[in-house]
């Protein structure tokens, strides 16, 4: 038997006609989205895309490498403040600033990754938690960061205005296209990385670090690398988030946010790039949109407010979000540990080659 296979098929992004078809359909949908959506919804989509970038990065650390971080809001903050301050104070172009801020976050990720060589599970969780809280407080103290009052993001000009090459993105829709392109690049990049030697080394560390080491994987290099890459993603996401919000303060990047990020990847599916994309989309949508107006829904809203007042709080539906997220988490852990990605796999089995 001398059938020469093309092994590139195994690692290709568009591994079949079906995948290519649906990817193109998705791209067309995403790039024409502003035609059908209200400006509020575009704003929501911007936040979703920012969270997608962050969740994909967090999943590299948690889902692929098996480490934990309760401090990703800290890297997110470094990205947001870093990008804005590099642009306003040093006058650097947007792309230089956001990449530099991402690299600063990556450097902090590397530092946080060092103790991960010895710390595991709860101890690592505490160490990263400490990092997140420290960043929040340092930013709150220093005037250059605007202190507790927060800072205003500069105008989002993605050209080099000093050279007369101005490209001002002065609307949510224009910003949407920028964020969409960056998100697509980051998602495909992550997916590629995970298909190569780097991703396999991460997975090896997650599944059996002793066997990984015995096969030649340097734990120090790859654990710190995973933290650094993950933090870079958080930093870039943060850089974009600053512009989406327009204004932010230290409390934008609180502990709850770090936990919500973890919820995104657990709900979406640990160890799956696509899972992180789905989880970030669903949780952001629930947080910002669906749950926000739930008390205005006919009948159900009144019932929920009554229920919440009776059993949880006096102020109505304040903590409805947390309760819903908690229930979703429970449901996922009990019924589908692979998260939305697991559900997706099962659906895909039925539709394997449709529409061909």
């Amino acid at each position: 038997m001398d059938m020469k296979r093309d092994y590139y098929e195994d690692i290709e992004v568009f591994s079949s006609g079906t995948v290519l078809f649906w990817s193109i359909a998705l791209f067309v949908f995403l790039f024409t989205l502003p035609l059908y959506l209200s400006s509020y919804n575009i704003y929501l989509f911007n936040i979703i895309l920012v969270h997608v970038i962050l969740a994909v990065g967090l999943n590299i650390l948690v889902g692929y490498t098996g480490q934990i971080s309760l401090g990703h809001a800290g890297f997110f903050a470094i990205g947001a403040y870093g990008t804005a301050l590099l642009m306003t104070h040093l006058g650097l172009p947007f792309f230089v600033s956001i990449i530099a801020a991402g690299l600063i976050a990556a450097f902090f990720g590397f530092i946080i990754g060092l103790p991960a060589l010895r710390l595991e599970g709860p101890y690592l969780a505490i160490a990263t938690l400490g990092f997140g809280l420290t960043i929040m407080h340092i930013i709150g103290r220093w005037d250059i960061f605007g202190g507790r009052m927060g800072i205003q993001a500069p105008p989002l000009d993605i050209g080099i205005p000093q050279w007369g090459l101005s490209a001002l993105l002065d609307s949510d829709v224009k910003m949407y296209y920028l964020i969409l392109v960056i998100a697509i690049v980051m998602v495909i990049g992550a997916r590629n990385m995970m298909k190569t030697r780097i991703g396999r080394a991460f997975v090896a560390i997650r599944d059996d670090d002793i066997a990984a080491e015995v096969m030649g994987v340097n734990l120090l290099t790859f654990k710190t690398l995973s933290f650094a890459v993950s933090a870079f993603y958080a930093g870039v996401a943060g850089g974009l988030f600053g512009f989406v919000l327009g204004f932010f303060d230290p409390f934008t990047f609180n502990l709850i946010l770090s936990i919500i990020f973890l919820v995104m990847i657990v709900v979406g599916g640990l160890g799956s790039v696509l899972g992180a994309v789905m989880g970030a989309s669903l949780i952001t949508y629930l947080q910002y949109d669906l749950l926000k107006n739930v008390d205005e829904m006919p009948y159900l809203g009144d019932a929920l407010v009554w229920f919440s007042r009776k059993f949880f709080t006096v102020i109505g539906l304040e903590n409805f979000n947390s309760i819903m997220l908690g229930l979703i988490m429970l449901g996922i852990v009990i019924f589908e540990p692979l998260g939305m990605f697991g559900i997706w796999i099962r659906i895909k089995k039925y539709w394997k080659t449709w529409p061909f």
Partner: protein
Amino acid sequence: MAHFKVENIGISFGGIRAVQGVSFDVRQNSIFSIIGPNGSGKTTIFNMISGIYKPDSGRVVLDGENLTGLSPDRIARRGVARTFQNIQLFGNATVMDNLMLGRHIHMKTGVLSGFFMLGKWTPCAREEVRHREVVEHIVDFLDLQSVRDQFVSGLPYGKRKLVELGRALALEPKILLLDEPSAGMNTEEKDDLRIWIKDIQEDYRVTILLIEHDMNMVMGISDRILAINQGLKIIEGTPAEVQKHPDVIAAYLGEEDIDAHDQEHRDMV
């Protein structure tokens, strides 16, 4: 100069002297077996060779280079690969990914070139394809085509043992440590394994260190055998010499003890 040399190696765990001053030389491309009752320190010797434990005393030397005290990943890069007594695979990855991890030390892809793997012609994709071809030979050799893309955690015991062997082979080691490779296999699988080990010695030109309880296999394929008991060397020699040694017979080659070992393995499976 000996190809591979263990000199006076020893280690204690909280007062228990697990291995006490064991020495042996291994000729290039030979099969060298270590036998001894359970708990006699065989796996501990492997753990010291591969760097998981740091020996309290002694040295491990491969082709004149001292490996003692190096980290396991450095030792792997010097050409030492191994399997584990209780299989240690990457359970939530496919057979192919497990084998590809064996190529880790031969590959160079970094974060950036991995990130920008945008087409067949990119350096990263070319490297990936080249190494997949190498691994595909191992898949064929060990007859793993049927499970190539399956997750390891779902495979039967015998197949997982083979995947682990394949992963170690993929590293293209100079020296391969096999810790009870036939444990839990049926007679048929054991026969196949024996042929594979012989083939690995001949085709891949690898030096093999083998810990094995199946005396038929050990006596049949070993060039030399080291017998240890309670961390101490009893004798080292050819299968014929070792078989005759009264202490070896007393320690565990007696009829009853062989049965006991077999029983134990049946219990484990």
